[in-house]
């Protein structure tokens, strides 16, 4: 008898009931896993089947129209591009500034840093619809009064993705070893020179992946924009920050709420486009992450 068998036979006289419990447990775990995988599969397959007939080059280049067969998503694509790029650039700059300040210029134990950190964690837990309320009260109407424009939507989404961006940017800065900073100081560099010439270049891949995550959040987000009141079909591309617009998630929402089946097909086709865009973004993030894995 080998040792493990001996141990097993000694350890428990009711080992067969234990073993059947083990099997049952593993079955439950597999079932949990299957639930997640089947969801993903059902979601993708179901969308592809209902969207296939509407997907065409015309669908990409046409504008929304009262007739389902002539409807397309060009204005929504351009709207998404405008809004997502604008909010991405602004939130990345704000997140970089905040993260650099907190990580490189304040003491981790200081009351200021703890206060801002808790504040950002709180913001990260706020439901996205609440950011919509903030945008509605402050940006669309109220003090700024921009109306429902590209600028309002970009401002709202910027506020929404900022906490996430700050957290990922801070992680990227934290991952840079302190030996790099100390070496730079030893050579006589100031703090800012160290940050600018050593830390930021070293943290660039981490920052890039983090901001791509933030941008994909903004690209797929619908709730705050629904609240801002833009569900009209817009049949022209945005021309500036004060322009009307629609975005891909809102087109999907609008089409999904229509009763006729043709509109469901349009919604599904638009979902396929949205998911492809998101997968492409994520693929870029993964490539950056893998290419630049630096071992410190």
């Amino acid at each position, binding site marked *: 008898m080998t040792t493990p068998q001996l141990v097993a036979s000694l350890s428990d006289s009711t080992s067969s009931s234990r073993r059947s419990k083990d099997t049952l447990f593993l079955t439950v775990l597999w079932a949990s896993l299957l639930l997640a995988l089947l969801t993903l599969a059902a979601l993708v397959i*179901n969308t592809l089947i209902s969207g296939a007939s509407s997907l065409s080059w015309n669908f990409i280049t046409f504008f929304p129209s009262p007739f389902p067969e002539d409807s397309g998503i060009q204005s929504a694509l351009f709207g998404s591009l405008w809004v997502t790029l604008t909010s991405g650039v602004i939130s990345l700059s704000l997140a970089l500034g905040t993260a650099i300040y907190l990580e490189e210029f304040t003491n981790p134990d200081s009351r200021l840093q703890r206060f801002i950190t808790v504040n950002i964690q709180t913001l990260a837990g706020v439901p996205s619809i609440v950011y919509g309320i903030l945008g509605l009260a402050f940006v669309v109407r109220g003090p700024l009064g921009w109306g429902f424009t590209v600028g309002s939507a970009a401002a709202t989404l910027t506020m929404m993705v900022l906490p996430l961006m700050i957290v990922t940017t801070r992680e990227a800065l934290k991952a840079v070893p302190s030996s790099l900073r100390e070496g730079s100081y030893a050579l006589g560099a100031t703090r800012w020179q160290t940050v600018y010439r050593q830390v930021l270049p070293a943290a660039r891949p981490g920052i890039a992946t983090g901001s791509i995550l933030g941008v994909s959040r903004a690209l797929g987000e619908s709730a705050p924009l629904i*609240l801002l009141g833009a569900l009209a079909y817009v049949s022209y591309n945005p021309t500036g920050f004060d322009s009307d617009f629609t975005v891909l998630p809102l087109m999907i929402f609008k089409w999904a709420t229509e009763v006729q089946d043709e509109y469901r097909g349009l919604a599904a086709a638009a979902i396929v486009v949205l998911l492809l865009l998101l997968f492409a973004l994520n693929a870029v993030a993964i490539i950056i992450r893998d290419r630049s894995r630096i071992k410190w």
Partner: protein
Amino acid sequence: MTTISSAAVASLLPTGHVKKQRRIEKVVVGALALIASSGVIITVGIVFSLMQPTYKFFTERAISGYASDETFVGIEESGAGLRDSSDISFADESLIQYAEPVSLGDFFGSTAWYPQYEDGDFGVLPLIVGTLLVMLTATIVAVPAGIGIAFFLNQYAKERTRRVLKPLLEVLAGVPTVVFGFFALVFVGPYIAKNIWPFSDVGIYSGLAAGITVGLMILPMMATLADDAMAAVPNSLVEGAFALGATRREVCTGVILPAGLSGIMAAVIIALSRAIGETTIVLLAAGSQAVWTFNLGSEMQTMASYIGFAGIGDQPVDSKGYQTIFAVGLLLFIITFGLNMLSRKVVKRFREVYE
């Protein structure tokens, strides 16, 4: 003692170049501090923007919400421009309906939520019950399965399997909520919710379909957070249990679960708060009637989906209907804020510290 040349001493003193660097440093720190305050400004903005209309909702008379179309002339149809109450000209002054301020007792005590009528009811209980029902359904779907997946990833999966599964979960977590909402409407509702609810007929819109789909949406997040919590359990404990002859199942339920409980509970609370705040899925799948019911097979509205719904119907600023958005929004904000605080407390209070 060696003499130091005056040139060497001079090189150690601040020169113009160094002084310039110091100035740059000061400007940079100031600018960064300013940027870092943006988060605080947003928080203040949220609280302020919610408080003011909510206060008016409870204390002031206002134009009745969703006032019927005949009441107004000259409202623009398109999304362009401002639609303040000042933009609206009244066809006939006598047609304007006013709603009285809502008392806190009516708000929390009444079971009727009909803000759209001129003589509206403003009892938020149907929205709260709807939120709880959808949240409970989502919990039943996401929490056990999420912990199960985490056990699998943590104890059973080989490194290769993990490397396939983790990105798949990330993909699922990255699917936009509007896509899940469509999925709920065309798949979960008609094919799943309709067939598993024994207590009543399930229509096109149901709290059940919304709850199941919200559960599926938060499942990957639940699994990832629970996996992180389990990974924090020290290996020595796990190996000790194996050395005593425990099976993998016994290690999971007897060691990892209790040792990682604080993190797992925090994960559950964070997932719950995501479920409570979910708007688009519920808006698409659960209908637009705030029905006072405990039957999951019925249409219902949650707090978040009401806010989204009220935002679609374009309402004049400072009307009663407009103010409900903020009153309900403040309630939602307080609840999710409380849950997030709780999750942080749970981690601190119940964390088992090893070594």
